[in-house]
């Protein structure tokens, strides 16, 4: 007697989006699926892709990261190369945090120059993140958009700045990350605003803001699940690939504090902290993951087999 296994079939598909690469590099295409992650049925033509973050500013690293990337942390170009060719990251997330006025205040020109250098050094796809200061970013992104020798994705556009970001991206052929603070309505709203401007949807990926493990992760996971369910059920504004940046995981005390003996080895613990954050995001529907520890790339890519 065979048991009839219930299926969950959906009428919609996630729009495929490609992060372009330079000649010699491998572009990353995500999306295209018509089913939930890990579901036994449906098509998932493009498995999730794992990338790594490179930062331009100086900072104190948690022990796990210090051990793994500390020696390269002052040299973003070298780190970028190692991420791609040594550690298997499929794309880079370049954060220009060094341009923040309170972080050593590298100039906008420095930021643009670094983007040019990194894009020259690695052929892999790149997403460029700002410094977090509204005024600086308003000057930084147009400069970066112009300076980049090939198309990148700019992170991120939100309600406050979407016209500026869309303008910079449209003028130079870049893509956008649309951002919302863990709110499914705001996630749809920013995509609607971009659509009203005529920004091509196949050049948009969504970042719903990822809370680290223990510090808001479940809100993110539920929002990602709801976005994916709505998109697959026919809401075109939400049928888009989702990006989860795991950086917040490293802000947790548990990921970096070596003093608590009862918590076990801090190096292993930090890596597992990022990994668990990433796995939960994959289970919810993330298509792009940005991690900081090289070990996470292999671990999360393996789990991203579906």
């Amino acid at each position: 007697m065979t048991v009839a296994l219930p299926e969950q079939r959906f009428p919609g598909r996630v729009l495929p989006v490609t992060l372009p690469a330079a000649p010699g590099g491998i572009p990353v295409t995500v999306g295209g699926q018509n089913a939930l992650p890990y579901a036994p049925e449906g098509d998932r033509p493009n498995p999730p892709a794992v990338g790594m973050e490179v930062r331009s500013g100086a900072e104190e690293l948690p022990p796990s990261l210090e051990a793994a990337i500390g020696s390269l942390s002052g040299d973003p170009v070298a780190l970028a190369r190692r991420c791609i060719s040594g550690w298997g990251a499929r794309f880079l997330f370049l954060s220009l945090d060094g341009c923040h006025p309170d972080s050593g205040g590298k100039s906008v020109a420095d930021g643009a120059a670094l983007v040019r250098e990194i894009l020259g050094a690695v052929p892999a796809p790149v997403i460029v993140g700002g410094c977090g200061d509204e005024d600086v970013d308003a000057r930084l992104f147009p400069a970066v958009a112009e300076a980049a020798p090939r198309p990148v994705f700019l992170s991120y556009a939100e309600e406050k700045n979407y016209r500026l970001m869309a303008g910079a991206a449209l003028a130079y052929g870049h893509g956008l990350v649309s951002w919302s603070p863990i709110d499914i309505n705001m996630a749809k709203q920013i995509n609607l605003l971009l659509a009203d401007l005529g920004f091509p949807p196949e050049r948009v990926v969504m970042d719903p803001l990822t809370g680290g493990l223990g510090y808001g992760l479940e809100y993110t996971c539920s929002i990602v699940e709801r976005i994916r369910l709505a998109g697959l059920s026919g809401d075109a504004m939400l049928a888009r690939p989702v990006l989860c940046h795991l950086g917040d995981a490293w802000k947790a005390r548990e990921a970096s504090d070596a003093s608590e003996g009862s918590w076990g080895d801090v190096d292993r613990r930090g890596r597992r902290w990022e990994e668990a954050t990433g796995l939960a995001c994959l289970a919810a529907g993330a298509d792009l993951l940005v991690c900081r520890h090289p070990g996470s790339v292999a671990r999360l890519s393996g789990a991203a087999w579906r």
Partner: protein
Amino acid sequence: MALTALDIYKLLPKTNCKDCGFPTCLAFAMQMAAGKATVDLCPHASEEAKETLGAAAAPPLPKVTIGTGGSEVVLGDETVLFRHEKTFYHPTAFAVSVADDLSPAAFADRLRAIRSLSFERVGQRISVDLVALRCVSGDPAGYARAAASALTATGLPLVLLAPAAPLATAAEAVGGSRPLLAPPHSDLEAAAKIAAERKLPLRVRARGIEGLSAALRSARAAGAKELVADPAAESLADAVADAIHIRRLAILARNRDLAYPAAFDLGDPFPDPFGAAALLIPRYGSLLVLDTADPAEILPLLTLRQNVFTDPQRPIQVEPGVYPIGNVTASSPVLITTNFSLTYFTVRGDVEASRVPAYLLIADVDGMSVLTAWAAGKFTGESIAKMLSGCGIEEKVGHRTLILPGMVARLSGRIEELSSWRVLVGPQESSALPPYLRRLPPAAFDPANA
């Protein structure tokens, strides 16, 4: 319950007599639709109503209880596939294994290690729930002694992973503690008889859904009642797929024959136990057996479980208290806001973005935003003054200057009246904090000016 409040209302007497304790029949119907009341509260409900509403309320995935008293573990009793649809009720239970053939010292060490996998996080205790005793020795008497010893040493309920003979002796020795019997597939029938006689929960292990279907049938035929289904997955992919199938069979198909909590043994030789555990927590794993007792592995998994099994319908709140942001000193500014999660994350993010190290006081207002909390009388001059003197900030900073959210500027007078603090009114919107904080005169926070 899939019935709407109005569907339910139509089945009620509609007299608004209030005997059920609710003000109107509609109110009662709405509570039933939300799963917060049952039809037996209405003394005047018709037979038809009782039948329809009673049946609709029966849980699709029955409950299984392991252990007794304070350390009882409940599995199952779930109603939705996604936590946002309502909530997940019973957290994935973790069992860490110990082998029965270890030396007494090693055995005791292992049990101690398991016992110490208990942590406090954001005001809750998160711990490993069970000890899984693996029968390696094959010796029924020895296994029974090990079971009794594990029970005494840890106080945790047991999962007895053993073939028929040792299982029988152990059930005799520790049956009163309500362990989960976990025989290999070959010994299912014998174990099912023990489970039936002693009224103990039983793990049924068989390969795949088809295998499980047959095995569960045999277990039921032997009289075993509280069952847990283990599809004997050998890879992460199979484990997750099986868990999804079993949960869907219960909730979507209402297939009573396969509606059981799902269990997985992620011990050796299972490849990638951590990855599987992390995926099975949100994807329907009810019980996981792990071979690792390393806190570096277990703490992240317990935290993930804690996160996934919070109730999404309760206002998302963070723990009230003092939050240092950046490299704080005794002259760092002090800000206050409420413990609504979004408020907390937003303000924290803006303070971080300002690169000005500061203390953020988070007031306990049951997770409301600043204005809502003020209107509800939870965020007042009195409550803030009380927090200032009680939360320990006065030991951390030398000054007595508090930055208040601009939206509740009107509270400043009262706060100054009731405490020894001075109040600066901050911006109305959190996004204006970076320039605001950067332009603060340092003299405001100099202890000499306190």
